């Protein structure tokens, strides 16, 4: 690592000019290590859970989705650095909007299509009617 990290006086810096990082390298690496450890744990749990008799069969997809959402949260916090800091408010709001749209698209599609499936004739009856 380069030892000479130039000190920039904050008052000398015009807005828009990069500021030197004021946190140590070790802190940065530590954050990523914690994130990696949590992500590995959740990933291993996901892969383990698929074939385990530990969980009631129909509950497995739910458990998988929960683990995936937890891991996405870990990635957001430790890798993408979404925080509650004031200069992050806009990012969090945009994320909330994105989550809303994703939930509407996926949840809505599944909901509507399952209802359509229920109201549909079985395929063999349908082809019989078309003759």
């Amino acid at each position, binding site marked *: 690592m*380069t030892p000479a990290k130039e000190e920039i006086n904050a008052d000398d810096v015009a807005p828009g000019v990069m500021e030197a*990082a004021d946190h140590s390298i070790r802190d*940065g690496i530590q954050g990523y290590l914690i994130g990696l450890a949590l992500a590995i744990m959740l990933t291993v749990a*996901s892969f383990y859970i698929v074939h385990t008799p530990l969980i009631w069969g129909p509950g497995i997809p739910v458990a998988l989705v929960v683990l*995936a959402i937890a891991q996405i949260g870990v990635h957001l916090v430790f890798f*993408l650095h979404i925080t509650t800091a004031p*200069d992050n408010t806009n990012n969090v709001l945009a994320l909330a909007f994105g989550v809303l749209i994703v939930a509407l698209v996926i949840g809505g599609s599944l909901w509507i299509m399952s209802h359509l499936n229920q109201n549909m004739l079985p395929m063999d009856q349908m082809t019989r009617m078309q003759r």
Partner: protein
Amino acid sequence: MSSTTEALPQPHRRDIAPAKLGGRGAPGHGGGGHGYATGHGEGGPASKRVIVGYGFWIFLLSDIVMFSCFFAAHAVLQTATAGGPSGRALFDPSRVAIETGCLLASSFTCGLSAVATEARSRLWTQLCLLVTGLLGFAFLTLEAKEFAGMVAAGNGPQRSAFLSSFFAVVGCHGLHVSAGLLWLGTMMAQIYVKGFRPNIVRRLLCFNLFWHALDIIWVALFTIVYLVGEGR
């Protein structure tokens, strides 16, 4: 972001309760810029880094929304195998596990490259980016092999609606990774030629966000497509 009305020409009032304003200790998103740009017009406009990160974040979210459409299509069509093979017959869990490991490790080394960039170490940045690229390439190779094997066995995207949606969503992610690899190559060349200019560092920030977002999409992908699909 913050209002640009009156605070711009004033000297930065750095000492107003700096502990309260937060935003430090975060090397990537938004933090590390002017910690006193609170969005309340106190420190002038937010630093360019914060704004660039915000803009790129919005692009990433729109990309994720696009992916959600592919995911919705796949979730709806998961059982529409038209008499063809289902996920259980097609997927190889150990291959998916290795792919996941590659991508997670590459995400980690990408984060390390960001730390090295903060420390202005060219050597470590380049090394970490190189490892990131190699891991990404290993991921792509595995995925290409999987696709080639499926198509060779007659289970290409034209076999069933389930396989169409499978190739669409996984292939779209693979395309993103390929584009990311190209971008990574150009970033390494830019660091080599131009060094850590402010604009290059901002591009590196965007690349980092892109690569981590790809990993987030892969988390959703291996869960919904591979693991849930395998149980069917």
